[in-house]
């Protein structure tokens, strides 16, 4: 009798092979579609051949810009990473403060939770014009859009996690003489730090969206700016290189945060 498929476990090498299949399929499908389009119009820009993407990547990564003498690819990357890092750090700091407060203090919860819940529903993209006025058109507004976009989510998540801390621990800390502040600082804060990292990992997806959207409107560099700029000329080879790069960056950031969490909070993993 054949095993039920829920009981069938692939061997290690088979797993690796299986994991590659969808990637190979997508690349093959892309290549075929690209070939078909270029058979009709050899100058087709929409689906450039993989070889051309590679050539473009090579050019973007190595050739300095004629006007500025710098390699724009790295300039863009640095600018975008800086913006996203600042936005996320600001959001995380705000979320930590408000999350702890809302999660621990019933009074803060009553005052702020409904407001934060409402804020989290407001579409920040629609408020862009106001953001630009309040924060100017420089770096601040881009960082602000990212921060505004993800802070409500982070606050709600951290507040929920703080409120989920076993009541027993909070009581125990009080019997050891801890003030409210000390409970927040020594009992709640360290325990939600790993969760903060987890929440930031979840929020990175939206953060990239906001980054790209804000760079599209007012910027001189950045990954989103470049994509937006070359979109006008349908330079899909450039766009695809940037998309692959953004995906890779997102993956690396995620990995970094995961490792950081493992390193800093071993007790959080051991409990699982």
């Amino acid at each position: 009798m054949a095993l039920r498929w829920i009981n069938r476990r692939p061997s290690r090498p088979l797993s690796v092979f299986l994991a590659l299949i969808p990637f190979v399929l997508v690349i093959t499908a892309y290549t075929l579609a690209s070939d078909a389009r270029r058979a009709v119009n050899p100058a087709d820009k929409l689906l450039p051949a993989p070889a051309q993407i590679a050539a473009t990547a090579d050019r973007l990564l190595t050739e300095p810009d004629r006007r500025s003498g710098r390699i724009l690819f790295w300039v863009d990357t640095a600018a975008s990473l800086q913006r996203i890092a600042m936005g996320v750090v600001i959001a995380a700091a705000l979320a930590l403060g408000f999350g702890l407060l809302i999660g621990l203090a019933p009074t803060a919860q009553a005052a702020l939770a409904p407001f934060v819940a409402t804020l989290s529903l407001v579409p920040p993209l629609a408020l862009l014009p106001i953001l630009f006025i309040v924060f100017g058109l420089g770096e601040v507004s881009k960082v602000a859009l990212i921060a505004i976009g993800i802070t409500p989510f982070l606050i709600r998540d951290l507040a929920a996690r703080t409120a989920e801390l076993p009541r027993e621990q909070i009581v125990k800390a009080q019997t050891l003489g801890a003030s409210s502040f000390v409970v927040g600082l020594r009992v709640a804060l360290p325990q939600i730090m790993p969760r903060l990292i987890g929440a930031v990992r979840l929020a990175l997806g939206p953060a990239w969206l906001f980054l790209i959207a804000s760079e599209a409107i007012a910027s001189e560099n950045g990954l989103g700016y470049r994509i937006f700029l070359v979109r006008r000329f349908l330079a899909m080879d450039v766009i695809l290189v940037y998309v692959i790069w953004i995906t890779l960056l997102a993956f690396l950031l995620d990995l970094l945060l995961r490792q950081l969490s493992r390193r800093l909070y071993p007790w959080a993993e051991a409990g699982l």
Partner: protein
Amino acid sequence: QEKTDFRIAWSIYVGWMPWGYLEESGIMDKWAEKYGITVEIVQINDYVESINQYTAGAFDGVSATNMDTLSIPAGGGVDTTALIIGDYSDGNDAVILKGEGTLEDLAGKPVNLVELSVSHYLLARALDSVGLAERDLASVINTSDADMIAAYATPDVEAVVTWNPLVAEILEQPGATKLFDSSDIPGEIIDLLVVNTDTLEANPDFGKALVGAWYEVMGLMAANDEAALTAMAEASGTDLAGYKAQLASTAMFYEPGAAVNFAEDEALKETMVNVAEFLFDKGILGEGAPSADFVGVQYPHGATTGDANNVKFRFNTEYMLMAADGGL
């Protein structure tokens, strides 16, 4: 109120590329220094956002068309002066059909364009010229200029109205037909540098510095200065040949005198009345505008169209005249 630090915004378009070059080459700084002020020139990707920012007060001046100046800052109560008339579109904006055909064939077809922009105005004028109106079209689909080329590549799209360099790019595609362009309505789509009227009145040096610097670059362009033109070409994402091709469909006013003459021409009044009517028809001439005459426009020598008691848009040739007379 008097001040010494000024900011103007511009966005990438063939006739406004000199602004980027002014900042980059240091010509602007030189002129600003001469009048003891500083002028920061900021490039903004999104054209509409740059005008919005100006209207909201984040900038003292902005590069804009006559139509958008009337609808956004002037319609929004910000008294605005056209300080420099840079050029008018002479083919840079075009109505393009996929496949063979004429303007009449647009009837019953959907048209993709940036709604409420000069493209929309061009389309209205084009349809007008063959006795059609917008309601004869299947629909008008608002399409971001950034995605116009990709949109044109999809089977859904049958006709587009857009501007350069997108027009050049789209016309390269096999089977694209240009039905109508801005050279058919010369002088109606005007590219300006507009500044806040109050700021200008309080700080005439600001106007002098801008105009002086601008016409220095105009001189370079008129003299076919390779370095300047190449810098502008690259900043706009093309090469020298491509940029020159775009300039060919742009009627640049290299001489301040020519711009002054254009401003003083009666045709300008007619154009502005047309534009006001178009804007009113689209319902965008300010909140609760009772008629197309709601916003007043003032011309050189004090003539006005629209509501003379609500003048918010002024064509001012004073500074361009100073440049023409070498008085800067």
